[in-house]
């Protein structure tokens, strides 16, 4: 077993996903078979090989620090599930 049920439980929490018992069993099985397949990577000799996160050799692409038009507030809020007084509205985050 590459990934235990307990791992699945903790990754689900990190992923902000809820899972019932049946889904937990199903995902444990499926993630295991995928990870067993992926395990072939451990056979590859990567000693001294640099990782490639990105194929283009780009670093810190910057633009001029100039003021430009941006989305009007109403448009930026137009897809909000809930809004109030020009802000996104969410359930209370802190106590008190």
């Amino acid at each position, binding site marked *: 077993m590459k990934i235990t049920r307990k791992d699945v439980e903790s990754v689900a929490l990190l992923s*902000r996903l809820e899972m019932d018992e049946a889904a937990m069993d199903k995902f444990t099985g499926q993630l295991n078979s995928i990870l067993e397949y992926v395990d072939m990577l451990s056979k590859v000799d*990567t000693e001294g090989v*640099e990782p490639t*996160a990105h194929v*283009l050799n780009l670093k810190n692409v910057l633009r001029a620090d100039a003021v430009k038009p941006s989305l009007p507030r109403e448009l930026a809020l137009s*897809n909000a*599930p809930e809004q109030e007084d020009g802000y*996104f509205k*969410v*359930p209370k985050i802190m106590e008190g």
Partner: protein
Amino acid sequence: MELYKLSAHELRKKLQAKEVSAVEVAEAVYNRVDAVEDTVQAYISLTREAALAEARRVDEKIKTGQAILPLAGIPGALKDNICVKGTRTTCGSKILANYVPPYDATVTRKLAEQDTVIIGKANLDEFAMGSSTENSAFKVSRNPWDTDTVPGGSSGGSAAAVAAAEAVWALGSDTGGSIRLPAAFCGVVGLKPTYGRVSRYGLVAYASSLDQIGPITRDVTDCALVMNAIAGYDPLDSTSINAPTPDYTKALVPDIRGLKIGLPKEYFVAGMDPEVERAVYAAIEQLKALGAEYKEVSMPHTEYALATYYMVATAEASSNLARYVGVGFGYRGEGSDIIAMSKKSRTEGFGEEVRRRIMLGNYALSSGYYDAYYLKALKVRTLIKRDFDKAFEDVDVLAAPIAPTTAFKIGEKVDDPLAMYLQDVCTVPVNLAGVPAISLPCGFKDHMPIGLQIIGKPLGEETILRAAYAFEQNNDYYKRLAPLGRA
């Protein structure tokens, strides 16, 4: 011949000669949609009013004697992960079911500047995650060559729309094969450009170091025309390549004498359908007969590409999709505090495959597994890219299959994620290396299309278009229309 059956370049001639109007063309395509969409299920939404208004504007230009641009008045479809201001863009997901982008993707803006007509938004696997378009939250698209089979994915709606003549051209996106696989399964042409050649601004992100937008068309000429419209540097995409954009139609020369083709033997994987293998070899023989040279090349890390891809892509996806928590936009579930609300929004909003990939990605990135999975995959990615660099020291292009088989039956692989992933074994290395590749029809097995893949060097789109054009013009696959029935 019915207007909807014509290619973009054929329609353009008719528009310029004033034989037809842009409104007539748009109406012909919508009549076709009305006739076959119940069978094909290619679209999530249709944008009829805006399309006809645009067609009228093009007609006005033609009437007043103004020059029209190459794709003016030519109806196309956009994969529904490409933002169009004011038009619902769902990404095939319940979580974005009501999302109306407040801005245009760069490709959308460029196509509007060309006066193209957008017929609608095409179906896809949710968040472009899948190889069959069965993962859409809205519908299962069908392969126009046999409606019991899948069109491939994730740009299955785009490819099915073009194959069924419900659109003259379409845009798809390709993260691990999502343009090329459906193009192959549906018998049309699909190009994944070099990473950075086409702006990703306004493309809903799946795996940012791999995603690339590209055309799906009925022939190679149309592919070049759409590339002319969408390629180029964009300051709004920090990974956009700042290089001049060629006129891709200049590459449409049916002459490949002296072209060096490499045949990577590792792409002919175990379990490949012998008839698919035969068709691909026959295509390569034909290219040779047309004057190309070919030799076998070895790309020894090919067998690790799929495992690498599923670590890199899911890791990037788990980060990209962390934004869907029901706050700024998208579906919101009920919850008394912010964590409960996030969980409900994501659990109810995401489909199973998306949840599986988020889980896999977060696992690969989590403390204790990062080095063994994610970092290891990035190192193997370097070796895969080196295989390409080395091969391209000796050859101009690589020729290979797109997939081990022709289109499979709907439902056949939905319960076996790994079997589904294995469809992408010949396409993912290209994304990991960031190089361009085209899929074009090279034969049939039991009436189902087979795709030939031609892979180029970085920014080598012109060379692969030339090879593809030479092959296409010496065959008649592109003239065949899908029957829209059951096999």
